[in-house]
């Protein structure tokens, strides 16, 4: 625990200023967990972009007589190495193809709820009492509307397409960002530097975006990366209830739910897509941990001077 007492690390001498990209990459390389996470996430993004183009046909080709083929049968085509599903389709190919919808739904829902929720939260925390009240009542309503129920009702009225799912899930996640942003804003706006900026005549917009947002943002990002998992699982729960994405569209959540009846007989049906969800979340979070450290001047030394790290 030596480094706790090592309060302000002295800036290491910079022999010749390295270019920032190389610097970032080196810091990434120094945190092996973050590095592996990045590689994995790049792979997921690659699958999401090119997966359907490459494997769409193979992933939908049924073979009823070869259903629930067990994994690790290396004599088969490599796409069958993770086994086959209940209709004899290769699981690996399906996971790759499903990455597109999954990431689209998760990223879309998280992005929209983050942007909308944070904006409203900053507004509620910093502006007039009346606006704040309206926003908070709105948050109350959404928060007390059970998210699955809201999703069920909306998806009964609209078609359960990927796009509609993004909207529904985004709405249900707004309050968490809104309330967090507001709570932090309430605290930050009382801090010395904000008060000072205000006295010096900074505009409201400037105070919010230049002074408050940077302080609030790390917590929001932590929630957002965790919400990635939440959204993927919420989507899976909807499939569990029989609503949500409908075949022949696929997502990891739907695959997990479709494999559920076979949990005791053919575990691989829901295990692999479940693992994909877990690994993606894990990677996102490890990367976000790294980012927090890398972006925080007081913490950054941990990544730059690996040799000294004795934790």
């Amino acid at each position, binding site marked *: 625990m030596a480094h706790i007492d090592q309060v302000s690390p002295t800036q290491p001498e910079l022999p010749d200023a390295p270019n920032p990209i190389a610097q970032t990459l080196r810091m990434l390389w120094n945190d092996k967990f973050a590095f592996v996470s990045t590689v994995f996430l790049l792979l997921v993004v690659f699958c999401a972009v090119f997966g359907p183009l490459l494997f769409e046909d193979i992933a939908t080709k049924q073979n009823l*007589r070869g259903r629930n083929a067990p994994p690790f049968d290396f004599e088969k085509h490599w796409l069958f190495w993770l086994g086959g599903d*209940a209709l004899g389709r290769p699981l690996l190919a399906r996971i790759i193809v499903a990455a597109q919808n999954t990431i689209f739904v998760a990223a879309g829902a998280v992005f929209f709820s983050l942007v909308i929720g944070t904006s409203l939260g900053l507004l509620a925390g910093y502006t007039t009492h009346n606006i704040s009240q309206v926003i908070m009542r709105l948050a109350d309503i959404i928060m007390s509307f059970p998210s699955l129920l809201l999703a069920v009702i909306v998806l*009964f009225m609209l078609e359960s397409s990927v796009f509609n799912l993004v909207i529904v899930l985004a709405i249900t996640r707004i309050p968490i960002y809104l309330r967090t942003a507001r709570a932090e804003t309430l605290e930050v706006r009382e801090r010395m530097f904000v008060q000072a900026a205000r006295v010096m005549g900074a505009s409201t917009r400037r105070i919010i975006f230049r002074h408050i947002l940077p302080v609030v943002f790390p917590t929001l990002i932590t929630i957002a990366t965790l919400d990635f998992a939440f959204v993927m699982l919420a989507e899976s729960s909807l499939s569990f209830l029989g609503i949500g994405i*409908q*075949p022949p569209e696929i997502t990891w959540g739907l695959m997990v739910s479709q494999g559920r*009846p076979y949990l005791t007989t053919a575990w691989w049906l829901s295990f692999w897509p479940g693992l994909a969800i877990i690994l993606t979340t894990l990677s996102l979070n490890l990367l976000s941990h790294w980012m927090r450290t890398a972006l925080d001047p007081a913490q950054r030394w941990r990544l730059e001077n690996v040799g000294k790290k004795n934790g």
Partner: protein
Amino acid sequence: MNRKTPLVAMSLLASTLAFGAHAQSNSVTVVLSEELEIVEPCSATKSNVGRVLFQNISETVTEMDPTTGLQPRLAESWEDVGNGTWRFKLREGVTFSDGSAMDAEDVAHSLVRMKSEAIACEIGAKFFGGIEITSNIVDAHTIDVTANPAQPILPMLMSTVTVTPSTTPLDKFVDHPIGTGPYTFDEYARGQHIKLSANPSYWGDQPTVQSATYVFRADSAVRAAMVAAGEADIAPNIALQDARDPAMDFSYPNSETVFLRLEHAYAPLDDRRVREALNLAVDREAFVGTILANGTLLATGITPPSTIGYDHDLKPYAYDPERAKALLAEAKADGVPVDTEITLIGRINNFANVLETMEALHAMYQDVGFNMKLEMVEVAEWLERYAKPFPADRGPEIIEAQHDNANGDPVFSMYFKYHSEGQQSGLTDPKVDALIAEATAATGEARAAKWSELFGYIHEEVIADVMLFHMVGFSRVNDRLDFAPTIRTNSELQLSQIEFK
């Protein structure tokens, strides 16, 4: 929380004892897939209600036995007295569990009640829809029942009629059913359990099982686990993939038939060649032993093969994708818009593996060149499309449905699914209407022959729909019980038939 601590500790102690000991040797626990919303005897033909009430609490006038045919129950005998009237002699010395004696007046009241518009009983609508029923009490234990139009199978219809006391209200469902059966309804703790116990004043033999508890678990794997862990004795309905233990798991034909109803009013489904292609494109054999259980039968008619008049000479359409493509090409050449998008509609949770089944069918249809979209809908939406009045501008639709008929006669199935006035019929074929009318009025051999003719006509000439499978159900039974499920287990579970080993 602190004040609760002694309470928690106490119940912890008490429950240690409770959880260790299994239920007493002469009681059984049954785990059902869904909770009962109502416990109303006049809707006891609904399978979830029937498994608890039918012949356990509420008995019927006659009884349909899958092996021996129609048997006496509350009626000892019956005879046709002409003009659509049947005379039933009721058993004497039968009392309801509230102590009152059962007589002709109770039967008459039950017949009125099941047709009461204020409560819409399942039995009245399902088995007596379009039939006017009147009764005349001859003496305390003799009753004449008249059906208009005349029903040659009226005694069989009476096997669905549950008898409740004449004091039962006509305008609302009961929440504590009273019947003449071998068990009494003791307790319904909503969300948790239903308890029955043996009726000491039962007119027949005292059953071996003295009490029963029903619990509800939506997940098939959990139901199977409960029997395996000894927490339950019977899980009447588990999924194929959970039925893996030959010592505990029984399969039985469950009287359900799965089929696709075709929308004849819209092109291209109004073309017979297209409908034939839809039949030829399905590799039915491939489902059996894979997505569906071994023992699943390929269907040629809408009722189980044990139904009278089922035409056993009909052959299921063989898998012939080339011929299907040729038929489509032929139809296209004649100007039939075969490229129109067809909606294939499945019902969520209709039976185990319904999603896989629908996905597989969808892929098979796409393979022969149909332009088809799969849509899985929940029950409310499904009903809107399945039953009349059909939605306007619905376009060409194919609707998956599962039909249950364990009564041995196809009359209701045929009327509701194929008659031009049937609630779920998309057909308007005068010949079908005529055949249904003739068969309904006929008896014995002639009746069977008429039904056979109709089965053949629908399957071969009209090609009304895509018949798929006669289904198989699975039950898991604890090996301390001597009980084997039958075709009736889908809709009833007579506790008095259960013995211990």
